[in-house]
Each structure stands twice: as C-alpha cells, then as structure tokens.
C-alpha cells in the first residue's frame, strides 16, 4: 500500500531524485531538494515552449491552457512495484540526479554514475542530472558534456529557483513527449500488461479472442492512465470507457475496477474546482463499484485476497479522503471502519501500518480525535513490533500525538501550543481560579485504564528510541497521575526508570512534567516584623493612630473585611529581610523519595530563594519551610516550587495541586495525595498578593536585666529599663509610644523623651527607655484560695494570661518619596512604618491582703476645765470664720495621738484589717493628703502628706491599721453640700439623700484619693495598697457624719472663779471640781450652720452609773440656773454661752451632756439628722464632758 493516497494519486508523475556523484552534506542536499520540491506542479501552458510535436499527439483534448502536470519527487528512489503495469502512476517515470559539484570534481564521472543508476529505473523515460555550484572550470567543461547534465551556476536562490523551474518545465515537456510516444506505441503495437495476479494462470490457457480482448482492455486502461498523467482527462475518460467495456466483457474484474477508478479520477480532474453534488454522487457511485469490483476480484481466488485487498483499501481511503467532510462523517466513518476491519487480511505489516496511519489521519481530519488517537496507537504498536530505533522513534512521536486526545500530554507540548495561541502568556493572570479546560481534563483523566496503557507505551517507546527526556517525562506523568493504581513494586520500577533516564541526561536539565513530590502551599507564616507594617499616610502625622487595635478586642469587625475573603490578603516583604513560606510535600508512593533540592520559584525575579533538600519516607507528608530574601522592590509572584528530584529540574505549580485536590474532593481524581499520606485536609491557600518594599528600619527590644517576667506583689511599683536597638539598615526618624493590652493603667510612666531625644536612631544604635510599673490588683477570679502559699505556680499561670500591658512602638524611617516607577501601587509612595510590640512581662503575686475595713467611732469624753479642752483657735482667715472645736492636734503631725485630757468629740477612724499571706514581712504606712481647699495654708505644715506611724505585718499575720478621718470634717454645714438636691427634692430629706448618691460617691472618692496606704517589703519592693473599694463600702453609709460637722456643738467649761483662792486650792481647782461647793459652769453652744438656730437647750448630768443625777428622787446634784427647756437662739456660726451652777453632793465621776431640740429646723438640718418625717423634732446632742468631783476633806 502507498501512503497518502487520494483521487489525485492517479495523475501524479513519480520522479526519483537521486543524490549522485559523491557525498552531499545533508543540509545542502536538503536545500537542493526543497528547491526542487516546490515545483511539483507544472502548468501545461508554461511547457509549450519546450514542447516539440514530433508526431500527431494522441492526446487530442489536452487542455493546454488550464491543465498541469503533477510531480511527486521520490527522494532516493524506490524499487519497482510489481503493480506498476496495473497503475502506471506507480512507475518511476523520470529520474533526477542531484550533484554537488564541489564534492565531485570530475563531472564526466558523475554523468557516468548517474547513467548507471538510471538503468535501475527501467520504467523511467527521462533522465536529468542537476549539478549545483560548479566551479568555473567545470562550467567550461560542462558545455561539452551530454545533455542530461544540467549545471546550475552559483547565484542567489531566486535565480537558481528560476533556473530550476525552467529545467523542470523542460523535463515536463520531455515527459509529455515520451507519454505520447508510449501511447502511440501501445495503441499500435500493444503491450503485454501483467499483474502478479496473472503470474500463475497466464493467458496461454485461455482462448485467444478473449485473451486478446483482455489485453486490449488492459492496454486501453493503461493508455487512460498515461492520459491522466499527461493531464488530459477527456482522452483518459475515452480510453477508460473502452477499457471498462472490454474488461467487463472479458470478466477481467480487477482491471475493470482499475479502469473505473481511473475514470472517476478523470471525471474529477475534468471538473476540477467544482464540487458539484451530482459529480460527487457519480464519483461516489463509481468508487463503491470499484470497491465492490476489487472485492469480487479476490473472492474468486481467496489466495489473492491479500494482494487485491490493498487496492480495495486504497480505493476506500481515496473515497474517504474525497468525502472527508463533516456532513458526510457517517459515511466516511463507515468506510474507514470497514477499511480498518480489513487490516487483518493484510499480510504485510507495512501495509497495515500505512492503513492505520491513513485511517488515523482521516479521523483526525474529520475531527474524531479519539478515534484518531486509537488508530495512532495501533500505528505505534506496529512500529514497536519492528525492532529498530527508527521505528521506536516513530512510535514515540505518534504516541505523543495521541497524548492530547487521552489528556495525558506533556506539559511542555501543551505549553507550546498554548503559547502559540496566546502569545502574551497570561500565566499569572489565571492564578487561583480553576481553568475551565483544566476541569475538563480532570474529568477526562478518569479514563485511567487507557491513559496508563498509553503512557506505558510512550515510556517503552522512548526508552527504546533512546530519548531519556521523553522517557523521564512519561514515567513522571505515569507516576504522578496514577500512583494509586500502580503497585508499590511498579512505583519503584518507575522510580528507577526515572533515575536511569536521568543518568543519560545532562545534569541540570529541565522537564516540563513534574514527578513527585506533590507540593501544596501550607501557609505564609507572618513574621512579627512583617505583620507590623503599617501604611503611612504622608498627610497624617499621627499615622499610627487607629492602626493598632485599641479596644480590648483582638478582632474588630470594622477594621477588616470578612476574614474569608482571602483574595484580599496581602503580604508585604522587605528588601533584605528573609522570609519563610511553608509548603507541604507529600510522597504517596512506596519508596523513599529524595528531593535533592527544592526552592520557591519566583517569576518576578526579585527574590533570592534558598534551596533545601528533603527526604520523604514512603507514604508520608511533611511541612517544610522554604525561605529566601527579597532583593528588589515590586510585586512577588510565587506560582510554585522548583524541584530537583530524580536528576531533573521540574517546576511544581501550586495551582495544579489545587486542581488535583479540588478534583479529589469531587471524586474526579483518583486520590488525594495528601490525605493518603495521612495529612489532614487543608483549606486551599491562595498565594496572596506579595509586594516588596524598600528596606525599613527594624527595632528590636530587650529588657535590661533579662526578658523574664518581673514578679511583683500587688500594688508594687517597679522600674523596668527597656533597651531598644535599630537592627535595620535605615535610621528611625519617627517614633511614637503607646500602650495597649490589659492593665494599661498599671504603667505609671514611660520616659518616652529618652527615645524621642535619640531620634534619628541610626542603624545599630541603641537607646534605653525606663518604664515605671505598678503591679495591678489580682482580680478575684485569678486568686485561688490557697494560691498564697504556692505563689510561683500561680504566677506562672498569670504570666501566660496575657494580662500584661503592651508597649507599642510605632516607628518609621525617612519619609523620602520613592519614584512611582518602582512601586506599582502609586497610592503608597511613602515607605510604610512599622510597629514593635513589647510586652511588659509582669507576674503579679498576691501581696498584702485586705480583709475588711470598718468605720470606728470613738467618743472620748473630755474633762471639764476652765478652758475648753481644745483651745478654740480663732482663725483669722479671709472668711473670718471660726473652726469648730475639734480635739485633734493641729500642731502635731501624728493623727493618732490623742490626749485623753483634751478629749474628743466623736473621733472617727477607719480601721483596715490587713493580712499578709506572703512569706515576707510588710511595713505599712498611711499617708493622708491634707490639701483642704478651705483650710488656710498657714495652719498646715508645708509637707502635705501626714504620715502615721508604721505598722509592720509579719508573714502569716494580720494587722489593723487605723486611719483618722477627722481631718476631713468640713467646718460648716451649709447648703453647698446639698446644693443640688435642695432644689430638686424640696422638703423630703430622705429623698434628698437618695438622690445625692452621685454627689456622695464623688465626695467619697475625693476622700479616698487623699488617703494612701503604702507598703514596703524588704529593700526593693514597695507599693501601694489599692483599697478604694474597701473604703467605699466602709464609708458609704456614714460619709456625711465624717465630712459634715454636727449642726450644733456643745462644750462645757468651768466659770472662772471670782473669789480668791488659796494657793493649795488654786492648784487643785485647776480643772478640778469639789463636792459640796457651788461650781459655776458655762455651756457653750455653737451653731455650725449659716442660719440662725432656735432651740430648746437642756443640760443633764449623769453619775458614773449613767443615772440622771439632777432630776429624780435620788438626785445627788443640786443646781442653780436653768438646766432644761432653755430657749436660745444661736446666730449663724456664732456661739453663745449659757451659765449655770452645779452643786455636787457626792464626789465622783460625773458626765455633763448638752442636748437641744431645734425648732423650725431647715431642710439641711433635717437632712443632716437623717429625719424621716418633716414634723419630727430634731434632737442634737453634744459629746459628754467628764467632771471629776473631788471630795472635801
């Protein structure tokens, strides 16, 4: 069989092209042949000048103006076919020699050689030898030689081509004349035409007439053939018709078929460019007949089937090629499938090969890729049966053509095709999304049975063909895609074939198809220094504002878009600062996989990756960190990794693995390589937008004296020194310090001026920053009941809680503008700032424990004397007010010192009970801040804090600390205290109180802020107790009593005696009262309000048993003056005296008490007295005064 048969085949003149006269270099020969082969069509019109009509042409109807001769150049020639009598186009009708003159000096010898070679082609009618690039000498000599040596003088290609065309036209004309000669001779003399079919039978046994007729018919058919070759279809048709008639008559079926075939061809040539459906029908009809006839010719003798079937198949292929159109697909398929089915009856493997090639080509033309692939595979199998390298190479090539239809094509070839179609190569743009075609290929990849077979064949053929790269690629594809279907032994076999192939490859060779391992992106671990890059707004000086989460929440819904929106994810890398990317590798196969090196492949070229080598045990997955350094500003694109494994460098794209995983999730891919290695399911990580920014400063910090957590007792005040250094290569020019995290108020002060003054901080420079901390109070939740003992464990727990405050440094380098060409995003033309977060590691231990606070009231009776116990200091203030007689010590600093003889009116103390659960001793000092605004400053010591004596609390002991509150008493009751409530809640005193809660709290807070309880422990620890809450609860109910004086204060003094006294008595009378003696006394009643108070005063005296000794039967005291029901009016802020005398009958201890009922009390008074109803009388009572009555001798 012949390849590439078509309807035209019948009219093509075969010309053998023989390189003659010594070796011709391959490329030069190729050049000559390419020049030659472009003139495969010679128009009849162009050869008329060379055509000499020696006799009358048998081709009466030759279309000189439109016809053309077709040539087929058979390079190297071919042996004569046994069937060339049957189909004249099989004959070699001309021989063209090609001679490269520089390699053969003697042209005569060349001519002889060529003439000798031509003798092998008996059928050839015309011989020419083309000698190229002759030397001048040869040119001269060449003129003398015979005609069939044509010299092509060296010149440019165009003129050589022109020369060549002319020579071919001459050749065509010679051929035409030879054809005429042949036809004339055949018509007149007749020839014996035989085919291998006739060899046994021969004509001899047949009857003469029939034999002659048969011979005539055959001659007619052959003449028709020559007519066709001479491009005269009408003549051909006439001869064919005669031939057909004769063949039918003689029953020469085979020749009948041949003639019919020729007539169909002649019909087509006649109506060349006219696809007339009528003609088509006619051709189709004739050809089906032809096929039938060929079949019939062999039916009679099945032994001949093998030889005739090729003609049948050729006819079928010719028809199929003629009909090969989409609309007629069904018919073509039937023809082709019929032809393919006949393959079995072909004996010659070469014939079968040609058949399958043609069938595959026609299916391909028809658009039936799968069928074409199937037959291509058959072709490859036939090639593989021939045991030589050339056939193997052919098999490999054919198989790689089928790869596309089976969706197993090498990426290298598919890239090539995609690059051709889409030259811009938008490989970056399609990142992330699944390419539609890749989805389809996922689906199609389920034909694993077929795909594996084909891949194995590719592997086998490329090994045989000695193409290690193709073998490597096939083995890699096989292993990567179908490892679940391959036994571990088979996997190892593939691995070794990979290694074997690699051994024959030069080192460092790249292959487009990746083998193992599977690589997927795991994550982009964000280095803290990268996370804290903050965009700087050149217009906003405080660019750090709002950049840090200021609230207690780590995540605020407003700060970022939805967290799932990973496409928006952006990462900034910095030139010169190394980064890490985590990738996960999987080796799902049953052998140890040694990855010689793996590194990130970066297309943008501004990244310097560091390769690592990995060893993956069988069926294992591993997460490894790939690092590198960005080298230039701009975006970084990481499509995958470059892997050097099995001796070949391959590119592993993350996108592909994502596709595989996606397909595995849908059940389209055989298996998820990561899951079968035991690695968990991972959300697909898309490569974020990575941009590289120019170098930034980098601050690093450490705490001077160690970064460990400082262990502090609650309330302890501690100094930390933080050393900050610039580890970057750019100076820090801006810096800002802020606080964040929990317990921010525990940072008392940050010496940020130390940092500010050090700006700009040069690379390598350091600065130390002192920070004062006050340990916060542990919340109740944190405190275990028994955590006091094992403080260490609890503190360890504390430090993990993240309850420490964070120091946040925002800093930036110089704000020089970068040229906008360097950064694509023109919006941020100023380098970003950075943030450094320094956690102040503090472990707070429980310190002094506050147990409870109590308000203590003490009434210490004063001794009556001639003067008031506490000398009423008349204060000459601007307001010219008197300070009530308070028994506290104006001159003395110690608040706790109480002179019992001076007495006190209702001393109030706050008692704090503190326990010390720790194992160190604490000393507690109470400081009271005395800056009463109403108090004139000259009365108070210059240092405002009064210190009480120290209280030492040993470990595991409790102690009470007293805090005097009397200092805070206001001098006057006025409505300023109630000012707000007075208006609101008119007469109802209780409601005023309720509503003045806020006021109260404020005044309590004011009070509390003035009291500080400080402690000291050991040499270094000192701090302050936070007892606000305790104070508050203790003082809540009685703050008014503490802050406000009584509306009325009562005092008693002895009236100075007018009578003379003895020196002894004088000594005694000093502060003494004698029995049986009239003692004059004065009651001092002071109005502390700003209103006049009208009241009814009564004075009682009680004995030591507490009985009233003025009234009643057993009264032991006589009196003169009015002691009860004294109506008095006291002007505001004034005091009046009321005199009376007592006569004590019995010596002993007595107590004098003043009391009064206030008439028409104001609301203020009512409020102060906590009255419930407005009608209730307001009763005021003074502090008791002690009177010691001495007995008379």
């Amino acid at each position: 069989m012949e390849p590439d048969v078509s309807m035209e085949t019948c009219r093509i003149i075969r010309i053998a092209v023989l390189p003659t006269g010594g070796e011709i270099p391959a490329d030069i020969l190729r050049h000559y042949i390419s020049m030659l082969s472009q003139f495969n069509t010679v128009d009849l019109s162009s050869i008329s000048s060379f055509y000499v009509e020696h006799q009358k042409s048998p081709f009466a109807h030759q279309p000189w103006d439109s016809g053309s001769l077709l040539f087929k150049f058979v390079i190297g020639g071919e042996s004569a076919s046994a069937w060339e009598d049957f189909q004249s186009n099989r004959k070699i009708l001309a021989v063209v020699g090609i001679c490269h003159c520089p390699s053969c000096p003697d042209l005569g010898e060349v001519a002889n050689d060529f003439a000798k070679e031509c003798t092998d082609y008996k059928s050839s009618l015309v011989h020419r030898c083309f000698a190229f690039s002759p030397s001048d000498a040869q040119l001269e000599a060449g003129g003398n030689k015979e005609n069939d040596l044509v010299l092509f003088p060296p010149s440019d290609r165009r003129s050589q081509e022109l020369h060549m065309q002319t020579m071919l036209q001459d050749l065509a004309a010679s051929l035409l004349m030879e054809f005429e000669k042949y036809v004339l001779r055949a018509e007149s003399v007749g020839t014996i035409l035989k085919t291998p079919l006739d060899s046994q039978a021969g004509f001899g046994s047949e009857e003469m007439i029939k034999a002659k007729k048969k011979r005539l018919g055959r001659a007619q058919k052959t003449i028709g053939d020559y007519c066709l070759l001479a491009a005269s279809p009408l003549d051909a048709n006439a001869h064919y018709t005669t031939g057909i008639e004769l063949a039918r008559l003689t029953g020469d079926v085979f020749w009948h078929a041949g003639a019919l075939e020729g007539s169909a061809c002649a019909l087509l040539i006649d109506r060349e460019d006219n696809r007339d459906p009528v003609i088509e029908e006619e051709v189709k009809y004739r050809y089906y007949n032809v096929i039938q006839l060929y079949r019939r010719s062999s039916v009679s003798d099945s032994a001949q089937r093998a030889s005739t079937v090729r003609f049948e198949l050729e006819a079928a292929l010719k028809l199929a090629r003629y009909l090969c159109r989409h609309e007629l697909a069904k018919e073509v398929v039937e023809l082709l499938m019929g032809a393919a089915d006949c393959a079995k009856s072909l004996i010659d493997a070469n014939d079968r090969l040609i058949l399958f090639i043609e069938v595959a080509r026609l299916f391909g033309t028809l658009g039936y890729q799968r069928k074409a692939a199937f037959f291509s595979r058959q072709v490859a199998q036939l090639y593989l049966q021939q045991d030589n390298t050339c056939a193997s190479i052919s098999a490999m090539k054919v198989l790689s053509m089928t790869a596309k239809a089976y969706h197993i094509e090498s990426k290298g070839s598919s890239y090539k095709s995609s690059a051709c179609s889409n030259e811009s190569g938008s490989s970056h743009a399609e990142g992330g999304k699944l390419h539609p075609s890749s989805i389809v290929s996922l689906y199609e990849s389920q034909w694993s049975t077929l795909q594996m077979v084909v891949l194995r064949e590719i592997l086998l053929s490329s090994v045989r063909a000695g193409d290690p790269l193709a073998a490597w690629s096939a083995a890699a594809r096989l292993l990567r895609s179908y490892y679940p279907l391959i036994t571990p032994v088979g996997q190892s076999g593939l691995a070794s074939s990979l290694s074997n192939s690699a051994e024959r490859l030069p080192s460092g060779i790249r292959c487009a198809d990746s083998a193992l391992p599977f690589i997927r992106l795991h994550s982009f671990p964000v280095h803290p220094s990268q996370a804290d890059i903050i965009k700087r707004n050149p217009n906003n000086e405080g660019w750090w504002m709002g950049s840090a989460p200021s609230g207690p929440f780590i995540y605020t819904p407003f700060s970022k878009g939805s967290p799932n929106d990973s496409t928006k994810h952006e990462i900034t890398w910095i030139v010169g600062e190394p980064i890490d990317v985590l990738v996960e590798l999987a080796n799902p196969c049953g052998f140890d996989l040694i990855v010689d090196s793996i590194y990130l492949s970066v297309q943008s070229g501004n990244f310097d990756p560091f390769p690592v080598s990995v060893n993956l045990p069988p069926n294992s997955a591993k997460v490894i960190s790939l690092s590198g350094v960005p080298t230039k500003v701009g975006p970084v694109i990481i499509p995958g990794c470059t892997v050097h494994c099995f001796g070949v460098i391959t590119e592993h794209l993350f996108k592909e693995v994502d596709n595989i995983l996606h397909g595995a999730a849908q059940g389209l891919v055989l298996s998820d390589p990561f899951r079968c290695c035991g690695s968990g399911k991972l959300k697909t990580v898309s490569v974020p937008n990575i941009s590289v920014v120019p170098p930034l400063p980098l601050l690093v910090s450490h705490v001077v004296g160690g970064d460990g957590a400082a262990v502090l007792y609650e309330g302890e005040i501690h100094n930390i020194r933080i050393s900050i250094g610039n580890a970057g290569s750019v100076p820090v020019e801006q810096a800002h310090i802020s606080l964040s995290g929990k317990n921010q108020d525990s940072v008392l002060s940050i010496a940020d001026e130390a940092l500010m003054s050090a700006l700009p901080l040069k690379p390598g420079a350091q600065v130390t920053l002192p920070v004062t901390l006050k340990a916060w109070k542990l919340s109740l939740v944190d405190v275990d009941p028994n955590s006091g003992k094992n403080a260490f464990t609890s503190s360890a727990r504390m430090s993990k809680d993240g309850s420490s405050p964070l120091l946040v440094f925002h800093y930036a380098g110089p704000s020089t503008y970068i040229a906008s060409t360097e950064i694509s995003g023109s919006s941020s033309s100023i380098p970003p700032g950075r943030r450094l977060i320094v956690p102040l590691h503090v472990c707070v231990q429980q310190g002094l424990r506050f147990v409870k606070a109590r308000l203590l009231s003490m009434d210490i009776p004063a001794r009556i004397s001639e003067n008031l116990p506490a000398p009423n200091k008349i204060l000459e203030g601007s307001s010219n007010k008197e300070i009530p007689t308070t028994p506290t010590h104006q001159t003395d600093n110690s608040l706790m010192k109480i002179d019992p003889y001076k007495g006190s009116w209702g001393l109030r103390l706050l008692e704090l009970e503190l326990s010390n659960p720790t194992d160190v001793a604490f000393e507690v000092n109470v400081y009271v801040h005395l800056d009463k605004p109403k108090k004139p400053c000259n009365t108070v010591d210059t240092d405002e804090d009064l210190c009480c004596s120290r209280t030492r609390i040993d470990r595991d002991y409790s102690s009470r600390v007293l805090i005097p509150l009397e200092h805070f008493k206001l001098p006057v009751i006025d409505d300023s205290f109630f000012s707000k409530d007075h208006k609101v809640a008119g007469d109802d005193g209780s409601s005023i109180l309720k509503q003045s809660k806020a006021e109260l709290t404020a005044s309590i807070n004011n009070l509390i802020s003035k009291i500080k309880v400080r402690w000291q422990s050991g040499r270094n620890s000192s701090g302050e107790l936070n007892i606000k809450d305790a104070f508050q609860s203790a003082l809540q109910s009685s703050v008014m009593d503490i802050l406000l004086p009584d509306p009325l204060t009562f005092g008693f003094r002895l009236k100075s005696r007018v009578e003379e006294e003895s020196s002894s008595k004088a000594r005694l009378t000093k502060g003494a009262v004698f029995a049986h003696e009239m003692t004059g006394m004065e009651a001092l009643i002071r109005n502390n309000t700003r209103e006049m108070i009208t009241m009814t005063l009564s004075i009682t005296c009680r004995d030591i048993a507490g009985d009233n000794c003025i009234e009643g039967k057993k009264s032991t005291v006589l009196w003169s003056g009015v002691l009860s029901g004294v109506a008095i009016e006291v002007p505001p802020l004034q005091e009046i005296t009321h005199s009376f005398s007592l006569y004590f009958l019995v010596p002993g201890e007595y107590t004098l008490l003043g009391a009064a009922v206030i008439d028409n009390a104001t609301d203020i008074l009512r409020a102060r007295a906590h009255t419930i109803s407005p009608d209730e009388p307001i009763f005021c009572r003074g502090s008791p005064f002690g009177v010691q009555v001495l007995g008379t001798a």
Partner: protein
Amino acid sequence: MIIACVAVVGQKNNPLYLQSFTSIGDDLKHHHIVHCSLDVIDERVNTPKKSGSRLNESFLGLLYPTETYKVYGYLTNTKVKFILVTTTSTGMDPESRNFFGKLHAAYADAVSNPFHVQGKKLITKKFAKRVEAIVKSFSD
C-alpha cells in the same frame, strides 16, 4: 442480542460506569471502543441542528460500526451518555432502544441516591446488579 459492554459516561465525557460482559481480557478493548464512540456522540451533542427532526430523541442509534462490534448510543437530557457495545451484526435498533430505556431508569434510580455525588463514578453494587439483570434479560 449479545451485549459485550455497557457504559455510562458523564457530562464531561468522564466514565461513570463501564462493565464488560464478555470474557475477561476484552476490558481494554471495550474501554477503547467506548472512548472512541464519544467522538460521534460529541459531534451529535455539539451540532444538534443536524439532527433536525430527531432533536429531542435520546436514542442516538448506531455509532460505531465495526465488523465485530456494534456500538449504540443514548443521550439523556442531562448529557449523560449510555453506550452499548454488542457483538450482534444485525441491526437491533428497537431492541437497543428498549434496553436504553431500562438502563436510563436504573441510572435515574442510582443517582437519586442521596449519597451519590454528581459526577462521581457509579460504584454501587445495586446499580451493577441491576444492569447485570437488564443485560441478562436481553442476551437471550
């Protein structure tokens, strides 16, 4: 009718089910036949106009005539293809039409399984048994 192979091919030309009913060893051949016959189905799917009056016809008729095998096709509305490979030489149009009707019903039941994922292979034993039964009923 001697049924050599029955195949169900998904929308994206992915094999969902492929079972040979002849002697062992023909599997690969059947794979090839089914795979190749997709060419014709693809053509019919992609150029529905050509079908003309047979626009809504599921039965695609003879797809792939070879000497030994006859391949029939059937296309559901969801573009799932059923392919039947027989070794009978005579035209079996009505019978194969009938066969496809039953196969379609079996397929519809199989994919109605709530645990079936669209596009995944049909690997349930129930479906396999049912197809086997259908094949048996036709192979008389």
